């Protein structure tokens, strides 16, 4: 490296701005702890987003077993809830799916669970997009 920084100095340089921001916190330890936990949450959220392969949530095979579909829909729901972008139309599909399954209407039940999974998947994609592009609607200063 041109500047010939050794690793200890480099870490110091990176840590300094964090220290400066932390010092501007009026010394309130509660606030600092909350801020720190928020930063940890945000970093975890970014890691989650990067590791999400939302296409894996959808099984497009026709012969998938109803029980598997129920399990996958529940899994997709948990995943989607974490993003806080769930649609108001989705959870009722799960309820309809269970009602159809109870009545023995397997094909109909599969449709509802598949549709719910698709909506959960789209809401996750929407959340990821919004995280990156929400500022597109902010008016610009001319």
């Amino acid at each position, binding site marked *: 490296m041109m*500047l*010939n920084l050794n690793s200890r*100095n480099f870490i*110091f*340089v*990176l840590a*300094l*701005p*964090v220290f*400066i*921001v932390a010092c*501007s*916190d*009026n010394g*309130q330890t*509660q*606030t600092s702890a*909350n*801020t720190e936990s*928020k930063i940890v949450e945000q970093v975890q959220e970014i890691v989650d987003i990067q590791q999400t392969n939302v296409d894996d949530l959808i099984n497009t095979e026709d012969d998938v077993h109803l029980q598997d579909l129920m399990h996958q829909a529940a899994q997709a729901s948990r995943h989607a809830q974490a993003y*806080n*972008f*769930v*649609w*108001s*139309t*989705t*959870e009722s599909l799960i309820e309809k799916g269970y009602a159809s399954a109870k009545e023995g209407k397997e094909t109909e039940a599969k449709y509802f669970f598949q549709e719910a999974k698709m*909506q959960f998947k789209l809401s996750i994609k*929407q*959340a990821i*997009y*919004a*995280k990156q592009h*929400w*500022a*597109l*609607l*902010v*008016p*610009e*200063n*001319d």
Partner: protein
Amino acid sequence: MKVKIYFVIALLSSFIVASSFADPVEDNKIIKTYFADIFPNIVFEEYVNGVYAIDENSRSQWLDIEEFPPYEEAIEAGEILFTTPFKNGASYADCFENGGIGIKQNYPYFDTDRSQVITLELALNECRQQHGEQPLSYGKGDIAYLSSYMAATSKDKLIHVTVPNEPAALAAYEEGKQFFYARRGQLNMACATCHVSSAGKRLRADILSPALGQTSHFPAYRFKWDDVGTIQRRYDGCNTQIRAKPFKLQSEQYRNLEYFHTHMSNGLPINGPGTRK
């Protein structure tokens, strides 16, 4: 020499960290300029009247309604609730600055000790719990009446929501801002889609109001509700309309949104409760 280089790098890094937070004052300047460009004939103070500031026909109907305001009963009910002591003899007045009179313009605020946004309705319920009373349900009913009364006592006071210059407060403001501008729901719409980008345009039979000034007249009597309701009840309705699963009233998400949304209207007078369709 090496020390100087470290100092410059540290300074640059600090700048990058600092610039990752929003600048609320700059945001306000930008939004006010934006609406001034779209509605050049509307004076700033008129934005508190929402769609009635920009559409003459709607305005004349509204002025007729205001001759016998439908929210008056809510203010009276709120005053009775506010002045009636709790079982322990204390009252709401004991929980607020200036006995709770003329303070709505300062809400929501960021509580740096608790590191969260405190709305007026949340503070009212915390006051109740502090004095051994059950919390009220949010959105409508008694909480909206209390809030209506407190808004009425703050009439014409200029909205003064502050964002302390500390990371947690700026982060809450930023989260509210992101919520406001992020598209969500099956219809893929943001608050800003209607109330910034399309303000003044028609959505079916309705004209969309500008975001600026929207919080000044809440709680509002809506004919659709046949009663007064809080701003967060309206958020719930908006989210439902775009087919997004609404958040719980007074959730962190909605409190942060209210924080950003109200800060946007800083400098405008409180004129709540108001009347809306």
